[in-house]
């Protein structure tokens, strides 16, 4: 599993280099076509990239969490969720337990963000917490922790910056062609031979303007899908229980409520494609996620070996593709990794959906600043964050409870 992380870092580097080359070529081509000064085009490309990179690097995760309406919760708000996150953190050997966020959203989904394992943040929706039992939740959290451990979050962040820069530059170029046609036009009249070279140059630039963003995105989508498979493999490996994630994905697929407020830029972060309700869409080239049914079948056919090599084998047999998704160095692990049995509380009626719903609701209330007071008569009082008085009276038995001034 350490080999996997190293292989990922190498791949990330290659992707960044390829995209940087694409961005550079675009800048160079536009500079040449419009100002006859390719270096200035390069500078413009670099400046756009640098601004986007700075914003994303320092504010990216905060912006994403804010846009999704996630609220941070503490261990006491939802102990089971926290325990599962801590378990998976340990299983993956991450240096620090990620911060945990909850989204008041009915659609079951989850995502991870934060550019390094130290800054990792995991967000789950209330719908997910309600629907999944502990084993399934562990599978999903394992998938998210897998994204963090495999450095996918960083990778996706940097890739998003690159695409953003390429798209912006291409837009500028496009408007350049629409209005004025660039400096090339004036040059054409001055010298005939140069005019022809100019025309070719313009054509090349135009092709670049049109193709670069498309290429960059296709590239990005392909890699994003691959990363989803890898995170599934990591989850199976951490939990030693691929059926947990498979059954969680089944429940997620059965959902028909769409996720609100998800932009295309953040879609790749989620465990299931949030832009498609039910996440049952066909796998086309412009999808960030592989088809969920395929992911389930791969996990289900891993039988009793939870190793990366086993996932790779299952992937090949289910998808019919000759090339696996797991980097060779990790897939060459020869030893089988024994899976475990379902944990007891997965089947027990103890963690029924009703009790999970109650726990989830409490976590949501608590995340909004509500305080809970357990009255000895058995009633639980929920006190809103801006409750004006210092004393609250139990509506059932009439006892007074003093509210300590400290707000949680």
């Amino acid at each position, binding site marked *: 599993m350490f080999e996997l992380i190293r292989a990922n870092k190498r791949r990330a580097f290659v992707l960044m280099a390829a995209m940087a080359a694409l961005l550079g070529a675009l800048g160079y081509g536009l500079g040449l076509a419009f100002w006859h000064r390719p270096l200035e085009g390069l500078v413009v490309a670099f400046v756009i990239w640098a601004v986007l990179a700075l914003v994303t690097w320092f504010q990216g995760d905060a912006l994403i969490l804010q846009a999704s309406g996630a609220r941070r919760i503490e261990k006491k708000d939802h102990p089971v969720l926290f325990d599962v996150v801590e378990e998976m953190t*340990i299983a993956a050997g991450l240096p620090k337990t990620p911060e945990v966020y909850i989204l008041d959203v009915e659609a079951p989904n989850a995502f991870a963000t934060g550019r390094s394992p130290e800054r990792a943040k995991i967000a789950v929706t209330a719908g997910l917490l309600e629907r999944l039992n502990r084993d399934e939740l562990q599978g999903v959290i394992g998938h998210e922790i897998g994204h963090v451990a495999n450095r996918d979050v960083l990778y996706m962040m940097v890739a998003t910056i690159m695409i953003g820069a390429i798209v912006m530059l291409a837009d500028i170029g496009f408007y350049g062609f629409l209005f004025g046609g660039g400096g090339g036009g004036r040059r054409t009249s001055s010298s005939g031979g140069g005019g022809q070279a100019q025309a070719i140059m313009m054509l090349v630039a135009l092709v670049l303007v049109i193709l670069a963003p498309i290429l960059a995105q296709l590239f990005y989508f392909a890699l994003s899908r691959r990363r989803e498979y890898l995170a599934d493999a990591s989850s199976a490996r951490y939990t*030693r229980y691929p059926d947990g994630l498979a059954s969680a994905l089944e429940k997620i697929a059965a959902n028909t409520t769409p996720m609100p407020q998800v932009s295309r830029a953040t879609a790749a972060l989620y465990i299931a494609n949030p832009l498609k309700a039910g996440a049952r869409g066909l796998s086309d080239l412009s999808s960030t996620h592989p088809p969920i049914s395929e992911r389930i079948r791969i996990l289900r056919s891993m039988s009793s070996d939870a190793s990366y090599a086993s996932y790779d084998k299952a992937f090949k047999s289910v998808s019919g593709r000759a090339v696996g998704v797991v980097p060779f160095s990790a897939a060459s692990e*020869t030893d089988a990794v024994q899976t475990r049995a379902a944990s007891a509380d997965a089947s027990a009626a103890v963690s029924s959906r009703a009790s999970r719903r109650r726990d989830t609701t409490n976590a949501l209330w608590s995340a909004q600043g509500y305080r809970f007071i357990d009255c000895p008569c058995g009633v639980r009082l929920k006190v809103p964050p801006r409750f004006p008085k210092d004393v609250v009276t139990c509506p059932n038995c009439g006892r007074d409870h003093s509210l300590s001034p400290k707000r949680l």
Partner: protein
Amino acid sequence: MIGLWIFIAIIVLLVLFMIGMYNAMVRSRNQVKNAWAQIDVQLKRRHDLIPNLIETVKGYMHHERETLESVTKARTQAVNISGGSVAEQAQAENALSKTLRSLFAVSENYPDLKANQNFLALQEELTSTENKIGFARQFYNDAVMSFNNKIQTFPANMMAGMFGFKEAESFEIEEAAEREAPKVDFGS
């Protein structure tokens, strides 16, 4: 002349290859160390929780002196042996897990105890610590496997012998029946 240059190039490549291999082995060994530290944190946490647990249940379990003593004894043994070999520690910790399980099993007979908030909180803490020990052990054993594979395969095994890399020991649990995620069934 060309022959000499080729010879030098081969030597340089060989040295670079060996440096790479050596670094890979060191990296892998450090991973094993870090992974062990993870287990250690969880084991210490469990050792720290047990005196509280004994204090809490003492007042309720008048007829279970033996069970309580066996837990205390197993804990003392586990604490004393920490720093010992992996196999010794694994054995002591397995014994401790077993006594804890029997303690929680008999606690079922004491409804008053089961209503004690402090006891319930400790029980929850200990279960989740058990789970974490399980996952830490899993991560450690992965690291050990990866390290051992690295130093046993040719040609790294020659280097390993030269620089004194020794195989790491994995942290094993006793019986296949205990292989499931450790769960102390409190019936809560």
